[in-house]
């Protein structure tokens, strides 16, 4: 596996009309899958847009795939090796799934018709849309449209793949199928997966970055983040007033997540979601294991 950094961000700051979206973010990413977690407005999408070269930071240095995206040539070089699925994606009226992905393939400079068609079919098959490729995108379900968006991002097996909420609206079976696709891609590419689905991050990512209010709150392995919640999740027959969060599970018992499990309680194995909740609950204190 290539171990040179595909993404190097130093002191990235971005503001929108006085609101700080990112503040002095430093990040270095290598091939593999990195999960990007954070509450709404944390700066995840802004970070992905900067990585996708569609947004320039106000301050800081961006280095992607060994190049600084300042000149038109460097931008084009980076974009040739980049795949990007934005959070929201509209599709033009009248386009079929195949036609849309082919359009993007042309923009990605697949000029030879035969190989372009072959590549479009490949990525549509990867996301299990081969059989509905000739249907108009607007006639597809939300989950299928999301997969059309993912297919265009996968064109040409990009070295840097940026996915903003790729599994929104996708059914569980398809999510598992997409995990297979992404885990295979992650063996050679650098993938950044921004999501609210902690189970996707737990299942796929070897590294997780938690953003909050434009700053990195945690940067480390999923195991390390989960480890921070050990001894802080417990089961009880009733909601524990000391818990930061508490909910009734399917077994009828209450899962409590808090600062510390009380004595005599029944501790249970924490999940990434528990750790994430605790981390955000204790915002202000940087838990950065590997940061």
């Amino acid at each position: 596996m290539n171990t040179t950094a595909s993404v190097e961000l130093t002191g990235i700051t971005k503001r929108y009309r006085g609101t700080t979206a990112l503040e002095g973010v430093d990040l270095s990413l290598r091939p593999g899958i990195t999960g990007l977690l954070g509450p709404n407005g944390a700066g995840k999408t802004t970070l992905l847009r900067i990585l996708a070269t569609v947004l320039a930071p106000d301050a800081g240095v961006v280095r992607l795939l060994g190049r600084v995206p300042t000149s038109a040539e460097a931008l084009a070089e980076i974009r040739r090796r980049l795949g990007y699925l934005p959070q929201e994606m509209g599709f033009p009226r009248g386009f079929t799934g195949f036609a849309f992905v082919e359009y993007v393939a042309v923009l990605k400079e697949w000029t030879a018709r035969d190989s372009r068609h072959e590549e479009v079919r490949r990525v549509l098959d990867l996301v299990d849309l081969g059989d509905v490729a000739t249907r108009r995108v607007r006639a597809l379900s939300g989950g299928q449209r999301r997969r059309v968006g993912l297919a265009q991002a996968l064109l040409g097996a990009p070295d840097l793949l940026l996915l903003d909420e790729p599994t929104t609206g996708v059914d569980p079976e398809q999510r598992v199928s997409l995990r297979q696709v992404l885990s295979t891609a992650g063996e050679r590419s650098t993938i950044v997966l921004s999501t609210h689905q902690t189970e996707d991050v737990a299942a796929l990512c070897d590294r997780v970055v938690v953003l909050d209010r434009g700053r990195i709150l945690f940067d480390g392995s999923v195991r390390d983040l989960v480890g921070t919640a050990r001894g802080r999740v417990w089961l009880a027959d009733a909601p524990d007033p000391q818990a930061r969060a508490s909910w009734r599970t399917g077994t009828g018992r209450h899962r409590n997540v808090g600062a510390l499990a009380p004595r005599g309680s029944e501790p249970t194995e924490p999940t990434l979601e528990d750790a994430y909740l605790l981390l955000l609950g204790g915002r202000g204190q940087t838990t950065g294991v590997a940061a």
Partner: protein
Amino acid sequence: MSAGLLERPAAPAQTLALRSLAALEARRYARSPLFLIGVSLLVWTTTVATGDLAKNAATADPGDLDLLPAFCLGLLGVFVGHQLTRSLDGADEALGATPSDRVRRTAALCLACLVPGVVALVWVGWMSAALAMWRIPLSASISSGARAAMLLSGAVCAVGGPLFGVLVARWTRFPGSALVAVVVLAGWTLLSTVSLAQPPSRSGTFLHLSAPFTAWVSMDSPRSAAWVAGGSPGWYLAYLVLLCGLAASAALFPGSTGPRRTRVLRVLGSLAVVAVVCLVLAVLPDPARIPL
């Protein structure tokens, strides 16, 4: 589930990448319902009108037809060019992360605007053949070159309309901007005809010829004699071609950066100067109208 991975294409020459994209946009243009309606309208009106010409060759006024491609393909083309440009707005963020930047995408759209131009050229060929076949002379005092320029003006408008649509789509964001553009274009054309109600003059000819969708021949009217407007059809044609260049360059401006922006600005400035010169040259000849 998975298939063999294809080699990612090496960076192609700029022209090759643009050509592939332009071919795709041209196919989108050719399949646009509004364009197909425009072509049907052109075929239908031409068929009806040339039928009349064949029956009344001695009294017919074929100059009336010159503007058909301008209206059927050009005016409707404003909507087509605009719609094609804006149709991908929803995917703009994903498309913006590809090596084909906005300037290349706009250039491809501008090249696709040649599609109605090709149809209009076929129409010009058909009209020329029809006029020759039925021996319909416009006027003995109009040269064949001037007559060809009049016919071709309509064909250039068929390209200019869609280019204007692309330009408006790239510069404006408000809903209904294409309709506003068409109203402005139609209003400009109507305003230019005001001068034709006055006795011939250079200022009147200037106003008349400054509009891009201008007819050279007066419409058939039982109340007035038919005539051909004063001015030079050849220079007017050159002026229209330059307006097309101006529209394309102005459409390329948003999204261009650095030295490319400077180049686009220079081209815009040069085209504007040459267009004004061509308009002046079109107005310079005798403004007197030629009776038919």
